[in-house]
């Protein structure tokens, strides 16, 4: 099993698991354009390595470790799409295939440089999927931008796996873990009570990619979709989980 092949599987599972459901073999085979039989075989291998929870009739979900890797690939892929689209002016229909090839060779250092150069983009250009947050233990995007150390290893890695607030459904709960973007939005969110570690639950999601209403500290707050997309939650239940 090549690492590129494995990364593609985990990335696909990351996307298919977004709504909290397990991915079926046929979905994966369709997405990756591979025969169902080889998908089953591959899932079994990934399960043996501890990346995937897999049983033939219930489909596949990522383990916390698998989630971490899948998320990382998705992040690199989507950042690359933004770069190809925003900086190199490639058409929306062209960026996906190219990013697919490039993502496997992108180092973490370059990933961080892309993120800051593109000003912490929130969504990818072609289908509006949310670009996952980085796994570095910076307190905020501003701190990351100011950081000029030599080795990223010194920064440390985030243990918890996070999902965007917009990926949560009504009545799902979690704690606020990371807020992406400039400090101005961060301060406004802190003021209404969204400090890191605060428990929130989603009470309403407006239709047509509208705002999300959450219950926080006994109040109800509506957050526009573009703001909620940048609020990352350590979700209660099966989503994400923790590594180590």
């Amino acid at each position, binding site marked *: 099993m090549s690492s590129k092949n494995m990364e593609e599987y985990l990335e696909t599972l990351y996307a298919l698991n977004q709504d909290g459901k397990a991915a079926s073999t046929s979905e994966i085979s369709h997405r990756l354009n591979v025969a169902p039989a080889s998908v089953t075989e591959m899932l079994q291998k990934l399960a043996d390595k501890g990346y995937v929870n897999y049983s033939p009739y219930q489909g596949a979900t990522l383990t916390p470790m698998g989630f971490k890797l899948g998320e990382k690939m998705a992040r690199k892929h989507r950042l690359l799409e933004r770069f190809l689209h925003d900086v190199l002016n490639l058409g929306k229909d062209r960026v996906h295939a190219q990013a697919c090839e490039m993502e496997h060779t992108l180092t973490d250092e370059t990933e961080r440089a892309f993120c800051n150069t593109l000003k912490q983009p929130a969504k990818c250009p072609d289908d509006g999927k949310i670009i996952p947050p980085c796994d570095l233990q910076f307190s905020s995007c501003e701190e990351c931008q100011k950081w000029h150390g030599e080795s990223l290893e010194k920064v440390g890695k985030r243990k918890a796996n996070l999902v965007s607030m917009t990926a949560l459904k009504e009545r799902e709960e979690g704690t606020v873990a990371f807020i992406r973007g400039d400090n101005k939005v961060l301060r406004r969110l802190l003021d209404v009570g969204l400090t890191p570690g605060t428990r929130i639950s989603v009470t309403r999601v407006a239709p047509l990619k509208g705002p999300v209403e959450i219950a926080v500290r*006994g109040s109800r707050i509506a957050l526009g979709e573009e703001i909620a997309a940048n609020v990352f939650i350590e979700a209660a239940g099966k989503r994400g989980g923790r590594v180590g």
Partner: protein
Amino acid sequence: MASFSSCHTTTGKKVKSGNGKRLTIALAGNANVGKSVIFNQLTGSSQIIGNWPGKTVERAEGMLTFDGYDITVVDLPGIYSLSTFSIEELVTRQYIATEKPDVIINIVDASVLERNLFFTLQLMELEVPMVIGLNQIDTARSKGITVDYQRLEDSLGVPVVPTVAIKGEGIKELIKRAVETAEQNGTPEVDEEGAGEAGAERGQYRHRQRQGGRQHRYRRGQTTRFGDNLEPTIDKLAQAIEADQLDLEYPPRWVAIKLLEDDPDITAVVRAKSERLVFLAATLGKEIEALHDEPSFAVLAAERYSLAGAAAGEAQNQEKVRVTLSDRLDRLATHKIFGYVTAAAVLVGLLLWTFTVGNYLSGLLSNLFSFFATLDPKMSGSIPSILWNGAFAGLVAGVTLVIPYVIPFYLVMAMIEDSGVLTRVAFMFDNFMHKIGLHGKAIIPLILGYGCNVPAIYTCRVMGTTRERLLAALAITFVPCTARTIVILGLVAAFVNIQWALALYAIDLVIIFLLGRIALKVVPGKSTGLIMEMHPFRVPSLPVIVRQTWARTKPLILMVFPIYVAGGAIVQGLYASGWLDPINNAISFLTVGWLGLPVIAGVLLIFGLIRKELIVLALVPILGTGNLGLFLTPVQLISLALIGILYFPCIATLTTLVKEFGWKPALAISAANLISAVFLGGVIARMLALVF
């Protein structure tokens, strides 16, 4: 209760009164917790209230006498924090620091105690004497929350008075405790120097203090203690600030906290006096960040919230409650289909109600008037009789066309505002508003614009940036206010049909949307997102509705009716003398040639700049009949109404635009109005000609 004094009392200067016992009390707190309700209760004023955040855009002042004191009560805008950078927050912070009210009444929503106490703690950090009004204890109870206010008082060290402002419960006790607190802290106005000379200014007070050795310019109130991980750092910085004797308006400890929070405003103030302190603060801030893995401002916010959470948790008891009616309504108003249906029903319902009830009342009133005198245009006779006739026609037009529509409109508008449905509409239409560069909150001023554009434009301050305020204001100038509704009613609903009247509102919405799209491209900048508190639905209070409607109708009757009467007289006088013709002829190439209107329209549109409804009202004395359908074709009626909606902001709106944005943007908005009216008016008139 005391009498109302205008909101234009100059702050800083105090009017001297008989016994010299004067106090200033400021009301501060989160948005939509009932500050303005309490303000109205205390002062007998009619500050606009309603169930949506951002009603009080400028501070209002009123007077009250209590226990021998002449008290100035100041209603401050609702804010969540003293640290972020909205206009309201800066204004409030500066007001408290520089004007130094004798006591602050912090209104707290008992049903959202923890979040409200977050702001309370920040007020305490400012070390001002304060009292807490624990409001909406009835709402809290319906959510299963009871608050032990005695316990809250003990844990915060600040007097706490439970209130239900809307019913007036606890208000007297609140003011009593506020006065006591002010007395304990000493009131500078009745200071040792003999109750101060008349008009003694705050500046002199400060000056005096400075002469009397180094004294704090702030009051000694209570403050908060952070955790052991932060307190030594804050202390260290505060001591350094105190040692430097920077002569600041604010208490050193507060300045220390703000420096650690990297507050740009305070950092700039301190930097001007001591670069060293800013450097020290930055170093200490880094230490905090290293320890907590969060930016220092986030650490302090989290710390405050944990203090607020502890105080709230200690004092309140939450019981499980069944789903309330408010919750059910909320589900409906934010449902993926019924939410839009509700929003549409509210708005269309408001218009239909105004049309039908207004029409009925208007008919009644017209009959009443025709019983006394019939309208008859005087083209000849003595000048006084011509003028009298015109004035009478103006009055009749005002009474029969304006009053019957405006009062029902404002009644229902007040109900809508008080219910809380507006925040739900904002929630549902957020992504739609993004298409014109705004976010959901902007829909609130837009809807208010259907009442009157002037307060709606002020309300644009709920938007974060100047760009968004400008875009929202532009859209508002295209919203048909009650004055323009009268034009639509008087011309179209009365003499064409009601479908065409409603169609005009729909056409207008399309125009607003298209112009919004264009404006978005023209005005550079980025859009911000929606962050809005959703307050529970509540049953509108009848006294509030009646009072609000009266507050909005009163100026109309007192100030605008004389304009109708004078306008009627002037128009008829000018008409009889033949002076209108040159004006009409001068712009007839546009009005007649391009827009297909009768020649008289030129003068009507000029009068309409004063008040839009004069477009219809002035027609009555000129034509000498209320039956305008005899003189204008349906196409002319519809296009005159459309042009009336669009062509230019009335004087009051224009003044407001200049005040809020300056001349250039105001004129640009007016130009957008004029261009779209001329262009669309001509095009639509030609299209209508094909239909009729």
